[in-house]
């Protein structure tokens, strides 16, 4: 299992860089990991709005929300979502939010 070191702590991640032990997630993890997902500078309030939303939803339902639901509930569009997370909501946003990897489909 690959490991990464962020802000002085070591985390186990899978080959796509998704956190393995979900309870290890903390805000420093997200902040220090952001550059890997092509986010420049520090995470903004808008980034946190998405991350917190994803975490809440995940805690409630055990899965990542559908993208339309994210856009509707947070009143942002896809363009904005990709501006915030250039690698996309499934890859970038879920990874920083410490969600288990969304089930990909071909």
């Amino acid at each position, binding site marked *: 299992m690959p490991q990464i070191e962020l802000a002085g702590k070591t985390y186990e991640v899978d080959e*796509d860089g998704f956190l393995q032990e979900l309870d290890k997630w903390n805000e420093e993890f997200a902040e220090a990991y952001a550059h890997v997902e092509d986010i420049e500078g520090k995470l903004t309030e808008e980034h946190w709005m998405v991350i917190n939303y994803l975490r809440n939803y995940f805690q409630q339902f055990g899965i990542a929300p559908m993208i*339309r639901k994210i856009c509707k509930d947070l009143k942002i569009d*896809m363009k904005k979502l*990709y501006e915030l997370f250039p690698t996309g*909501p*499934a*890859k970038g946003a879920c990874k920083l939010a410490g969600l288990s990897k969304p089930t*990909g*489909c*071909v």
Partner: protein
Amino acid sequence: MANSKTPLLDELEKGKWPSFVKDLKQAAEKNPMAEDLIGQLELSYKEKIGHWKHGGIVGVKGYGAGVIGRYSDRPDLFPNVQAFHTMRVNHPTGWFYKTDALRKLCDVWDKHGSGLTNMHGATGDVILLGMKTDQLQPCFDDLSEAGFDLGGSGSALRTPSACVGPGRCEWACIDSLDVCYNLTMTYQGQMHRPMFPYKFKIKVSACPNDCVASIARSDFSIIGTWKGSIRIDQKEVTAYAASDLNIQQEVCDLCPTKCMDWDGKVLKINDADCNRCMHCINLMPKALRPGQEQGATILVGGKAPIVKGALLSWVIVPFMKLEPPYTELKDLIERIQDWWDEHGKSRERLGELINRLGMRVFLRAVGLPAVPQMVKAPRTNPYVFFWPEEIQKEVK
């Protein structure tokens, strides 16, 4: 072959047909990824179990689709396929390439990946098989430079595809190439940035022969058709009669609706009964041509059997004129996608959602009137999807 490391795969090289094993071995001479792929496949054949892990989320900047992550579960044995991602490249509409475009594509692929391709995938894209994670972005950049873009994957609009249409075929009733290209350019967002409940496929066939099998393979099928009579050139009919073709047996008797009459001199067609199977036109292309007023039939709901069983698309618009900029068509697509997106469960295709909520709910939501042509199969099995209040109106 006694010492072969791949005795099971070797079996697939026997016989006179082409063999992907032969191709893989050829590629393995140049590329260690292909070599390990052969090794892993042989192991899968031996153990009767797949050795790819399920899923993987990788991508390129700005895109949520176009790359499918793949990892081996035996990287200890096959380190070169530890990461073996797939990239989907949007094919040129109708699959018309110049050889230099193909060469360029292959050069990029030899530089960044395994060199293995699948021309083409079921959706239509060029499938580039086998790439390491650190090569994704540079490969995408080089492809862009060469004029290529990625196609759709995951819960996105998949790369629309079309038959060769008027590019090569005299039966084309619509410009399938232009429709497909136009839709592809219009819906770049939906293709690259997945946001639907599941995949959505659009395929365009220029005539009812449906050479891209849009009826079986797409959620939204556009099939060229005509109104009015099949055009008959009786002189050519006479010429066919004088040739090897037995018009009575091979044409009229095989007409599924028996709407053709041949008295040995004149061929008559009762066009009201024609269901556009294309059989007669296919057999007598010089004598028979589709009618003059041309457009498309729009069907929805086709899919292959995942989650629920396979469905064939069924008619929702019997005839639509198709001319650029295709506003009516796009309005309809967007209304349908909106409704599906709003009500669909995760992994529910359009056809399944219509089956779950009902055809009349669907028709009301997208603002289409119920018409007799909306049947599950031609001439049988009509839906009953009028609303009670509408039936009342009719009775008066």
